[in-house]
């Protein structure tokens, strides 16, 4: 069964587009990344999943239940971390978590709150107003996961967290995912998705560009060649590198170009030309996304 199924989801704020015709599914137990630049529609989509926004069109099914009217019971199976985490500044971390735990019908001592707080090095005795942005984010993570939800919906969960805590956070998420929790998270840090997710959806200007398995994207990736030839100078024209990649360039004595498909003929051509140094790299997910992004932009223009 799908944990999340979204079909033809649109949201307009008056005439302004939030998202349009967004469709994807997330299987139970999957780790799904939702990527896009700021203002792409990630939070709008997530806030519709959480019943905070009413969709203009489309259907959402969560954990097998179709979202029509408000369904608080369904929300008890979901943990949600908003992109901007705010709590009553007068409360301390412990009080926030106690209130949230009671909302789920639990006593705080029966939740994972203490364990997660310790792992994230969060002092729960301090008032929220004294927390830094990072500590507020940590409190949000604890609150979102403390009741062991079936589905965790995390909107930009790592912003404000230092690298060590980010590492621990992903470790924690992996453990919870192994125990059956479905993870849906949005980010604009593509390396997080590359390391952590099974599948990824790209969204831009309210429209879903594509949904792919992360390992499938890797297979279709371009190879980035950085070559220093024995012969000095710009050899792009002479070796017809611009036929391999119209954007091939010569910088600081190196020829840089990208090639898709089999690389054997390219290596043979380079060997014939005489090579002093050669690096072949897979572009990062970030570069792939930026290429997708610019292709769509050019297509529209």
């Amino acid at each position, binding site marked *: 069964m799908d944990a999340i199924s979204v079909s033809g989801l649109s949201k307009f704020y008056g005439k302004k587009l939030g998202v349009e015709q967004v469709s994807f599914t997330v299987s139970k137990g999957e780790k799904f990344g939702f990527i896009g630049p700021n203002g792409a529609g990630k939070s709008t989509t997530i806030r519709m999943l*959480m019943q*905070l926004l009413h969709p203009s069109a489309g259907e959402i099914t969560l954990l097998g239940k179709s979202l029509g009217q408000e369904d608080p019971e369904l929300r008890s199976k979901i943990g949600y971390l908003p992109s901007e985490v705010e709590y009553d500044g007068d409360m301390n971390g412990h009080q926030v978590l106690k209130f949230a735990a*009671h909302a789920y019908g639990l006593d705080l001592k029966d939740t994972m709150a203490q364990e997660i707080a310790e792992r994230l090095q969060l002092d729960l005795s301090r008032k929220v107003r004294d927390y830094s942005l990072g500590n507020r984010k940590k409190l949000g993570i604890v609150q979102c996961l403390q009741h062991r939800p079936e589905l965790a919906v995390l909107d930009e969960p790592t912003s404000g967290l230092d690298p060590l805590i980010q590492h621990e956070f992903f470790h924690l998420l992996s453990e919870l995912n192994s125990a059956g929790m479905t993870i849906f998270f949005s980010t604009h840090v593509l390396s997080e998705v590359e390391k952590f997710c099974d599948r990824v959806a790209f969204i831009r200007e309210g429209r879903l560009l594509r949904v792919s398995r992360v390992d499938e994207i890797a297979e279709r990736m371009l190879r980035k060649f950085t070559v220093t030839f024995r012969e000095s100078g710009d050899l792009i024209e002479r070796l017809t590198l611009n036929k391999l990649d119209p954007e091939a360039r010569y910088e600081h004595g190196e020829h840089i170009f990208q090639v898709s498909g089999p690389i054997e003929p390219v290596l043979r051509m380079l060997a014939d030309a005489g090579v002093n140094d050669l690096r072949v790299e897979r572009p990062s997910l970030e570069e792939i996304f930026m290429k997708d992004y610019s292709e769509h932009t050019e297509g529209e223009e």
Partner: protein
Amino acid sequence: MMGNLIRNEWWVNRRNFVIALVIIVGFQVLFAGVSDIYLNNEDIVKLLETIPSAMLEAFGMHPEQMTSFEGWMSSEPLLFYLMLFGGFAAVWGSQTIARERGNKTQDFLFSLPYSRTQIFLSRVLAQWVMMAIVFLIVLGSVYLFGSLFSTIGDSGAIFIMMLSGMLIAMAFAGIGYLFTTLVRTERAAMTISIGIVMVSFLLKMLSGLDDSVAWLSELSLFNIFDSVRMATEASLSWTGVAICLFIYVLGIAVGVLSLRRQDI
């Protein structure tokens, strides 16, 4: 689960509530304590008779009422009680949802497994209890200080006057509920609610200036109950009670419906 929301509302409003209680009780205790200075004081009665009736009416003063503790409490003390109680109630009501938006805590609250109706009604109930506590403590304090420093002739009249404050406070809270889902900040909510209380008082003042503007009194919640009748007959008009309850229920209904329909 509603208990969790109600306790949270009390906790969030605890300082505000104590401040309101101290101010409202403080004023009433002060007025009750000094009542005998005014009662049957011929100089003060003569002085009041020199003041234009519209001015006296604006501040709820009736020289002929200055002969009993209930009469005194139905004048300026009652007006202060209504204004203060109504003002705090309007602020509480108007901040019910506006507070969440202002503090940007709405995503947290509305993603919890509570329906929007549950959240709204829990807060309404919590605030009603706060108002009831204010009413009971003010009532007890007036009885106590009235007994200590004066003579209470008709305790029923005192009860009815304090009850009228509770009803008018509920009406102002209802007005707050009408727009709490529409404003985006706590400050805006507070400004609007205090503004409404002030406008209501202004209408009461203006209505006494001339017969041609007497109709303005119909628009003021401060004129909904007749203070002289409360002091002398110990009774409230049922029309006034019905209007207060109607505004209260209407505010709650509009607030809930608006919250359910809108985007958070």
